[in-house]
């Protein structure tokens, strides 16, 4: 449906994309996640045909974005970052203009505009000038114009950038709803946004695709071992002997009133040892006030892959 194959892109001496490849299946909602300057926008600009790749290919529904660009663009809805619009036009006039650009005839145009206005909750402002709208409404107008021709593929570049928390929540629920019946690629540097909307996450950093999969797959593949946090009323030596720990396995610290804090790594063969550990402390008659398993999150994986830190939870 959407494919990008071994794409390289240079801006002068800067190697912005280094052999990025991925493919989205029909109906898949994927998030392109990466820190600023990672290559997200370049990837999107190549997929939308705004810029050509230096090597490699990209296509939308089998139409090459370079050699068959017009057909590829006809299948595509695109919301650029911060939804650029003509401030002097009214919402309806702008949607009318965009639908004419896509060559829709009068009847199709009327129903398409009505549908887009309804789906993007623009009924209240359809007669108002775009320049007089809030940023949240402008984003929605941009989104409405991107879905006017009912594209099979929707690409959104940082759709919640610059919005306030309420507007972000509204935009997210709108994007989620739109993703129910089409293939969608959303670029963002905000992890919770991607986690909430997308079933697949593509992590890019320094021009490379560092990870690709569902959140669970990313954690399984790239997450570090889980950690066990214990707080027990005993000395550190006693806690270590109960747990059978060597010094290198854990960090321990003595707290006030005789409590000890232990932070240890779980062994690969026993990902969740809480029940066994609880039994050990009970057998030694040592009170325990905390026994917590900390597993890697997508954020840990993202930080590890994007910034080269260890993926410790």
């Amino acid at each position: 449906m959407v494919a990008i194959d071994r794409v390289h892109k240079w801006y002068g001496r800067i190697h912005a994309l280094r052999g990025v490849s991925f493919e989205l299946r029909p109906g898949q909602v994927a998030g392109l996640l990466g820190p600023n300057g990672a290559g997200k926008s370049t990837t999107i600009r190549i997929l939308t045909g705004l810029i050509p790749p230096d090597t490699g290919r990209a296509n939308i529904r089998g139409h090459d974005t370079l050699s068959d660009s017009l057909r590829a663009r006809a299948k595509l809805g695109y919301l650029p970052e911060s939804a650029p619009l003509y401030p002097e036009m009214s919402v309806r006039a702008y949607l009318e203009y965009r639908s004419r650009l896509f060559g829709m005839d009068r009847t199709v145009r009327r129903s398409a505009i009505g549908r887009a206005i309804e789906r993007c909750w623009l009924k209240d402002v359809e007669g108002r000038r775009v320049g007089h709208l809030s940023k949240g409404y402008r984003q929605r107008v941009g989104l409405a114009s991107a879905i006017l021709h009912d594209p099979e593929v929707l690409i959104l570049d940082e759709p919640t950038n610059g919005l306030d928390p309420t507007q972000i929540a509204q935009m997210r629920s709108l994007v989620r709803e739109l993703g129910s019946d089409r293939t969608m690629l959303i670029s963002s540097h905000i992890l919770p946004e991607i986690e909430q909307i997308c079933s697949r996450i593509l992590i890019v950093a320094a021009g490379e695709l560092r990870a690709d999969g569902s959140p669970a797959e990313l954690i399984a593949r790239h997450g570090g071992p889980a950690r066990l946090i214990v707080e027990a009323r005993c000395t550190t030596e006693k806690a270590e002997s109960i747990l059978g720990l060597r010094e290198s396995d854990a960090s321990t610290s003595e707290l006030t009133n005789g409590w000890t804090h232990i932070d240890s790594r779980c062994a690969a063969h026993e990902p969740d040892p809480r029940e066994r550990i609880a039994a050990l402390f009970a057998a030694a008659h040592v009170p325990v006030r905390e026994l917590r398993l900390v597993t890697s999150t997508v954020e840990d994986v993202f930080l590890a892959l994007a910034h080269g830190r260890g993926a410790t939870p």
Partner: protein
Amino acid sequence: MTAVLVIALREFRSFFRIPVGWIVIALFLLLTGAVFATAILVPGQPATLRPFFAIAGWLMLPVVPAISMRLFSEEFRTGTIEPLLTSPIRDGSLVLGKFAGASMFLLAMLVPTLAYPLTLWLVSDPSPDPGPIAAGYISLLLLGMLALSIGTVASACTSSQTLAFLATLFVMLGMLLVPSISTQSLPLGAQRILNALSLSPRAGDFAKGVVDTGHIVWFVASTGWLLVLATLALQSRRWR
């Protein structure tokens, strides 16, 4: 073709949604009106619109760059070029649409000046010769459209409206002033090229009421080539 018309109409309407459009028309009509009232509408003088065409021709120098400077530069600056370039429209259609919209605005600016020949018709005896008047208007339109195509190229090259304005103004000035520059010291080939690019002799002939097909072809062909150049300038942005 539909896309060209859609873009042209949006462009044309946009001139009337911003103050610049109204200000340009108002200043143009004010200055040409003043010339008409003081230099043409004089009792005892022969009925001719030559002073009007002369001043209107010179007014094209600041007016046309003011119209054309925003065609693409504004779209680059605000980012609205992205939805346009990702729509299923050819770059050539986009350039043609923008140019057509600006030309329609130029026409809308010239239409009210038809009041001058009409007034002259009503008040002067003998009536003015329609030939030079028609030639004058054809000349203004061709000159304006050529200048607009220069402006379209300039605007497609930069996101700065000021730069697009100045580039258009200086190229137009250069083309008008070529005959005034001493070309004797230049090699024969260079003299020929400069004369072929020169605007004044052609515009001058029109002002005298001479409609030379060669001149019309020169204006139309130059405008066409400049629009091709503007398309290439727009496409080159994708490769930068």
